[in-house]
Each structure stands twice: as structure tokens, then as C-alpha cells.
């Protein structure tokens, strides 16, 4: 028994701590993501500039040693705005993914466990949600409930939910007849315990990858919405809002839009790369 526990502990440790097959690109992606998280938590460690300080004299300065990414139309330092914007952008990306996932898990569990009629109903709801392209669904939601940061997060989550829901449902159906579920039920565990302790963890395993990659995509769609002016109010530093502000000056000040966009790209790219690495580790598959 003791040796079994040791084996389990060892395999857990090897999963988390033995960075097997990690390549250079994945390390860079991980480092980038970790520094993003740091920038979101303690932005003032990364820059001395106030992201909101208006300095009219130094408006539209191109990138230099003093202002790495240049300055905008009010002389605000773009680099510090990008750094301070990380918090908002990550928060939006993570919370909309969270909302999408919650909707998906509820619908997926209902569909996978609820019997034929419920399953048909869930399928039908998904079919209807799928009739809207995600941004159109989000725009419709904003048209009805108004714009702002809250509706933006819910709208983005709602737009991404149908795709996840279909996957969760498929996974639940694949897992629900497994031996270990049957054993857990035979042991007399309550249905809720079986769902949360056995069913969901096993069903969600392949979804970890989709989620990692999903956060990048949600950041893209959320910044598309704030680019359209449907999220934060302008002076607030957020990547999508910065792009939208810089759009008016794209003819003569490229740096206003280039750098916030670059950070969206790097974030999406890093989440994709890390997601693939996790996929490799989970499925034991080499590229």
C-alpha cells in the first residue's frame, strides 16, 4: 500500500516537476506568460511612468530610449499603458473564459446525464446558439443589456460558450459509462459526489488544453469588442481600448496601435504554445 502511494506521488511529481521534452519556444512562452501575470499584479515594478499622466508637450513621440513604445496623443507613455493594461485584458480574458466554461459545464452535464429528452433540448439550445457567429451573439447581448465592462465579459463568454458546451457534452457521454463511475456509484456515493469527484475531473482533462488556448482567443474577441468602443471608457489602459484610440492616428503614428496589438499577439501565441505542451504531456504524444 505504501509503495503504491509512493508510486502515485512519484508519478504526480514527475508530471509537474520533470520538464521532459520542453523546448526553447515553450520556455519563452512560459516566461512571457509569467511576466504578464506579474505585470498584472504589480505593474509598478515594470515601469516608472503613470499610465494616465497627461504631458501635452511630449505628445506623439516615436519610440525612443525614454519612451520605449512612444507616446500617444496626450503624451502618455504607451509602454506603461500596455503594462498597466495587462491586468484588465487578462482579467477580461480569464473571467469570460470562466463564464463560458460555467455555461458549458451546466449545459454539457444536463445534456450528457439528463436522459434523452433533456439531451435533445440541450442539443437544440446549442444548435440555436450556434446559429449566431460569436461576435454577433455578443453584439446582440450588448444591444439588449447595454455596454460596459461587465456586459462585455458576459457577452464574450456567451459567444464562446456553445463550442465548449458541445465538447463537455461529448466528454461526459464518453466518460459516463466507465467502470470507475459504476464503482463509485456502487460504493453508494451521492450523485453530486460522483459528478464532482469522478465524472468532471475525468471529462475535463482534454478540455484543459482547449481552455489554455481559449483564453488567448477570448482576449482577441474581447479586445475586438473594446476596439469597437463597447467595453472600457477610453482613458483606462486596456489593449483593445488603446487600439481603438490609436486607430484615429494610424496614418502618422503607427506605434499607438502596433504595441498594444503586439501584446495581444504574444499573449495568444504563448497560450497556444503552452496549451500544446500541456496537450503533449497529457496525451503522451510527441509533435
Amino acid at each position, binding site marked *: 500500500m505504501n509503495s503504491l502511494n509512493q508510486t502515485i506521488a512519484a508519478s504526480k511529481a514527475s508530471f509537474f516537476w520533470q520538464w521532459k521534452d520542453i523546448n526553447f519556444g515553450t520556455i519563452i512562452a512560459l516566461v512571457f506568460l509569467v511576466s504578464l501575470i506579474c505585470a498584472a499584479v504589480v505593474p509598478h515594478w515594470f515601469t516608472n511612468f503613470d499610465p494616465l499622466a497627461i504631458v501635452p508637450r511630449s505628445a506623439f513621440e516615436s519610440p525612443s530610449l525614454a519612451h520605449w513604445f512612444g507616446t500617444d496623443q496626450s503624451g502618455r507613455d504607451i509602454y506603461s499603458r500596455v503594462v498597466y493594461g495587462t491586468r484588465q485584458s487578462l482579467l477580461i480574458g480569464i473571467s469570460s473564459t470562466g463564464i463560458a466554461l460555467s455555461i458549458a459545464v451546466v449545459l454539457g452535464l444536463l445534456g450528457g446525464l439528463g436522459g434523452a429528452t433533456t439531451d435533445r433540448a440541450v442539443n437544440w439550445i446549442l444548435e440555436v446558439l450556434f446559429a449566431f457567429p460569436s*461576435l454577433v451573439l455578443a453584439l446582440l447581448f450588448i444591444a439588449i443589456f447595454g455596454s460596459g465592462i461587465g456586459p462585455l465579459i458576459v457577452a464574450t463568454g456567451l459567444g464562446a460558450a456553445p463550442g465548449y458546451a458541445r465538447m463537455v457534452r461529448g466528454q461526459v457521454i464518453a466518460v459516463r459509462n466507465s467502470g470507475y463511475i459504476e464503482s463509485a456509484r456502487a460504493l453508494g456515493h451521492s450523485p453530486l459526489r460522483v459528478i464532482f469527484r469522478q465524472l468532471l475531473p475525468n471529462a475535463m482533462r482534454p478540455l484543459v488544453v482547449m481552455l489554455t488556448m481559449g483564453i488567448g482567443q477570448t482576449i482577441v474577441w474581447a479586445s475586438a469588442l473594446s476596439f469597437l468602443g463597447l467595453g472600457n471608457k477610453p482613458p483606462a489602459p486596456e489593449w483593445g481600448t488603446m487600439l481603438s484610440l490609436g486607430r484615429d492616428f494610424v496614418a502618422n503614428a503607427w506605434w499607438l496601435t502596433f504595441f498594444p*496589438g503586439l501584446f495581444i499577439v504574444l499573449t495568444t501565441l504563448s497560450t497556444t504554445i503552452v496549451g500544446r505542451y500541456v496537450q503533449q504531456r497529457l496525451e503522451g504524444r510527441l509533435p
Partner: protein
Amino acid sequence: MNTTYETDNHTKQQSQSTSLFGKRIAWRLGGAIVVLWAVATIIFFAVLLMPGDPVLALLGGGSGNVSAEVVAEVSKEYGLNEPIFTQYFIYLGNVLSGNLGTSYSQHLPVTQVLDEHIGPSLQLALCSLLLAWLIVLAMTIFTSHRRSWRGRVGSVIETLAAAVPHFWIGLILLSVFAFGLRLFPPAGSNGWNTLVLPSIALALPLAGFIGQVTRESLDFTLDQPFILTAKTRGLSDVGVRVKHALRHAVLPGISLSGWAIGALISGSVVIEVIFSRKGLGRQLYQAVLSQDMPLTIGISLVVAAGYVLANLFVDVLYQLIDPRQERVQ
């Protein structure tokens, strides 16, 4: 003797499969109509849930100056004094007869606005989808191969393209090719040269996504025995890829195209705004901004209908390319 029998059997099987094919399309079409009905219903009840007076909401969220006569007229047109279910049937009847109301912000019938903007939108969507597939085919046919540096470079380019948001590419293209080099007009929707930059901006991320899937499946197909057979018959490498492997390899990409059309529609909202193009996406955006509910509802309904039909078309295309699906059913 034997041959006649076999041919006979074959024709019979074929006609049977054609009828099965038709039946399946009919089923799917029926399903699509039911989905569209549900879409219209959901929009109706969602608008009912809106905070505030529905008459004012229909007329612009109470921000506009609305005279009492207009309120009375709209109440009558939508039957807003009637019980909810009567209202619902009036609304369904209106939608079915193509009466989508009058746009508050443009003072035009919604159908007229749709009519004017649907063309440029379709042009942009088709152009981008075509361009995306051209890029994918060119990239995968010429660079796909496991264990070769070309394949690895191609794969990196695709990953990069998939990570780049279309609106950022749009802005960069705008500042380089429209304002910097002045090769293309920065705005407008007349003529082919206004179509170039928006199509590229929409096509690149799409090509990245479809390319990743297609490369994976082409790599897999190239390891199959029938490819070796084709090679031993003396076909050139590119010939084998185009004539034998491609038909298998495009299937996952084709089934992704349904999703891709959705991404295109979503993307075109932002791209049409950036390039000031005529189109449904920008109209939808402006309708949402000005709280023009009739126009928002009208465009959402049309877009949903178009998307559902496009997905149906993708399904049919998939079956035409891979008839094996049929026999399984």
C-alpha cells in the same frame, strides 16, 4: 453475365444513395428552419426582457425625441397593446412576410438597408474565404512534410498567423499599404482595390487555423500505403500530393469551414469598421451603438439565416468530396 449483374447492382446502389442524400439534405433544411424559428423567438423574448419601455426601445432606447403619434403608430404596428402571445404572432407574421420594421437611426425600411449592404458583405466574405483556402493549399502542398525544415517553417508561420487578430493586421496593412506606400485606398467599398486589404486581414488568421488542421491531415495522409502505391507508379511528388493526398487531406479543413464562415462574419464587423466599408457588419455595429433595435434584430436574423445555410452548404460539400460518409449512415 457476372459483370452485368454487378453493374446493375452498382446503379441500384447509386440511385439509392442519391435518394438518401436528398433525404438527408431535406432533413437538415427542415432542422435549419426550426433553428431559425427559435432564433426569431429568442430575439423576441430577449427584447421583451429589455429594461424600459419596449416602444421607446424599438425607437432608440428613449434617447430620441419621439412624438406621441409615432409612439401610437409603433404600438399599433407591433401590437404592443395586445397580450404577449398576440404580439409574438404579429412579430412572426411580420418577419415571415419580410416586414422587418423601420430603422430608427436611418429612417429607412430595414429590408432596404439589408438590400443595400448585403452585396459588399458577401463579396468580402467570399473573397477572404477563397484567399484563405488558396494560402492554405499553396502552403500545405509545397511545404507539408514531417521531419523537414520546410514543414517546420510552414507550421511556425501558421501558428503565428492563427494568433494574430484580424483587426491588428487590418490596422498594420492600413498604415503600411494605404497611408505609407499609398498602394490601396484606405477606405471605401467601390472597386476591387478596396477589397484587397480587408480580404488579406480577414484571410490570414483564418488560413492559419485551417492550415494547421490541413497540414496535420496531409502529413497523416502522406504516410498511407496508397500514397506509396501512387509513387511507385512514377508520379511526381507534387502530382501525388495534388491528385491523391489532397482529397483526403482537405476534409478536416472543409468541416472547419463552417466555423470559419462564422469567424469571417464576426471578423467582418471589425474589418468593415476599420476600412469604412459598406456592409452588414458595420451596419450591425452602428445599429447597436445607436440602440436601433429593428435594424439590430433584422441584421441578426439575416446573418443567422446566412450562417445556418452556409453550414448546410459545407455539409453538402463535405459529402460530395467524401461519399464514404453516406454508406455509413
